[in-house]
């Protein structure tokens, strides 16, 4: 009896040790990633944060005071307007495409997704210049529209807000379509059948069943597109023709033109804080939507 008890106790301790080392081993798989994130992301951000409060004389709030200037407010507004517009257009263009792809046979869907992914494989710079060629005053689009007699004078499609938005939508669209497609693919076709069987017309079934079930994908797409759009630089710089000033361009100017690391850091910190705030707000909002939809 007592021999059995002592064996049990020994085994218990040994089993607990085994479980612990097993967990440790699993955890160790994430060490490389943790190191990378630590040194390449967290340390530089901390350093930026530090820089933004420093000048030659030590601690200062001067960099942040400077941001109160109206020109920065205008930049912030432009940045947000553009991000909103791009996100909205991506939803309008991306949702139907993702829907169609999700309804297709796997083979055809693969081809569609390949086309969606295609822009990823060409350089951002090349794509942006290609838009410049297409959209400029004597570009392909204006030439065609004039040849067909649709317009008399060339449209101003580039070197402005419109051109920037067109270029950014093109780049952001895959980020909207891929999570939407993934979410839609996981919607069992029997849900739509059940809705029809219970008496819902196709339109009602779509809005009352399909759209709510695709919301997680839509939320993910909206979040990624919006946040990435806030930090855009190359496309607005080239297609905006100097008329569209984005937050990231202010950062670049602080560094390239004025070599002012403190100011650039402060701008970076502000963008980071705004982005985090939006992410937080968004997750709260989608949580609330899900809860409301569940009626719980």
């Amino acid at each position, binding site marked *: 009896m007592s021999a059995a008890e002592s064996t049990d106790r020994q085994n218990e301790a040994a089993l607990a040790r085994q479980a612990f080392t097993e967990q440790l081993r699993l955890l160790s798989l994430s060490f490389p990633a943790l190191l990378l994130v630590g040194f390449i992301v967290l340390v530089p951000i901390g350093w930026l944060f530090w820089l933004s409060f420093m000048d030659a004389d030590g601690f200062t709030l001067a960099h942040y005071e400077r941001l109160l200037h109206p020109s920065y407010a205008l930049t912030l507004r432009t940045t947000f307007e553009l991000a909103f517009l791009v996100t909205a257009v991506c939803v309008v263009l991306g949702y139907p495409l993702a829907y169609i792809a999700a309804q297709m046979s796997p083979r055809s869907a693969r081809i569609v997704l390949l086309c969606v992914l295609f822009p990823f494989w060409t350089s951002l710079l090349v794509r942006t210049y290609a838009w410049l060629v297409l959209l400029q005053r004597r570009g392909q689009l204006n030439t065609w529209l004039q040849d067909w007699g649709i317009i008399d004078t060339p449209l101003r499609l580039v070197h402005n807000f419109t051109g920037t938005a067109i270029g950014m939508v093109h780049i952001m669209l895959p980020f909207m379509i891929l999570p939407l497609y993934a979410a839609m693919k996981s919607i069992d076709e*029997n849900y739509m059948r059940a809705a*029809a069987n219970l008496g819902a017309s196709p339109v009602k079934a779509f809005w009352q069943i399909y759209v709510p079930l695709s919301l997680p994908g839509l939320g993910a797409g909206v979040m990624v597109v919006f946040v990435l759009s806030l930090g855009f630089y190359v496309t607005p710089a080239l297609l905006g023709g100097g008329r569209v000033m984005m937050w990231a361009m202010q950062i670049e100017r602080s560094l390239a033109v004025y070599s002012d690391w403190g100011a650039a850091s402060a701008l970076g910190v502000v963008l980071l804080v705004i982005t985090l705030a939006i992410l937080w707000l968004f997750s709260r909002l989608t949580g609330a939507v899900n809860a409301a*939809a569940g009626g719980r």
Partner: protein
Amino acid sequence: MTSGPLRSEGMGGAAALPITISRIRKNYGSFRALDNVSLDIRSGEFMTLLGPSGSGKTTLLMVLSGFVRPDSGSVRFAEREVVLLPPHKRDIGMVFQNYALFPHMTVAGNLAYPLKLRHVPRAEIDERVEKALDLVQLGGLGARGVDELSGGQRQRVALARAVIFEPRILLMDEPLSALDKNLREQMQLEVRRLHERLGMTTVYVTHDQREALTMSDRIAVLDRGRIQQVDPPQALYDRPATHFVADFIGESFSLPVTVNDGRAMLFDQPLHVPRDMTGPGPHFLVLRPEKLTLLSDAANGEAGVNVIRGQVRQSVFHGDSVMIYVTVRDTHEIALRIPLRGNVVLPQPGDHVTLGYGIEDTIVVPAGTSGDAP
């Protein structure tokens, strides 16, 4: 029991519609999913479509619900032709195999959905949802999320949602296949009870022949897109029309039979059959293990019994009975089931045995491909 919504007993006849399926064909490429299927389902009947996978049973149910468009043929609910009607205008209840409960709605939300679509007033919806929940013994769980329910509870919610708008036809697509054995058997009885209480015409799809035998008024056996036989469970079991049906329903073993001039021969001995043989050609004698009896060695053609001789190969213990596998003429295997009660003397492997099979129980079916069935 209840009055008003979710109708009471005794109204069954008035609440149901007969279904007439005529000459339905459906091909997927060169695959014939449904090959000229005609079937009359009576008002208020519990009809089971039974068959192996790929037999067309689910396709036929999808044709009734409107999710699969047949190539040709007609479906009528009572006198009304519905084959051109889209699913949402057919007004029939359906229980899906994986339940298809909307995950973004509560249990009550799921039940209320078909009523909202029919513009039922809010107060009445609440009342009917409560009654439907009581009907499937889920009273008080309306506020739960669908993902908080067990498999059996989801099954009940799916059932309640399919009947809450009082459809006169109810379709079920293998609704119990996801449940474990005990729960499945319990739900079989509950579904059957619900059918008796609500009285709607019910079409039930399953590949489980035991389930079909337990629940149905009549069973339609399908194979390769064709209906093989339509009969009440007992008739199907006792008098299968084709080799396929005999094989698919219950346990059976078969021995080849030849028919010459209307006389059946089992190997070289004449076989007594209860009815005259119809056609010449190869046939099969269908043997149910529980209907075979062990005769004394001396027995030789007792009155009313066909005799089969063989050698015991193996005996398998089944708890309540023993299955004795017997080799006949070294090439064919049959089995008999011996119930274990009292002192039964069991034959041992290697023993030569004489088996009796009642002439009234003797079933001889044509051996032709099952597709030749009527």
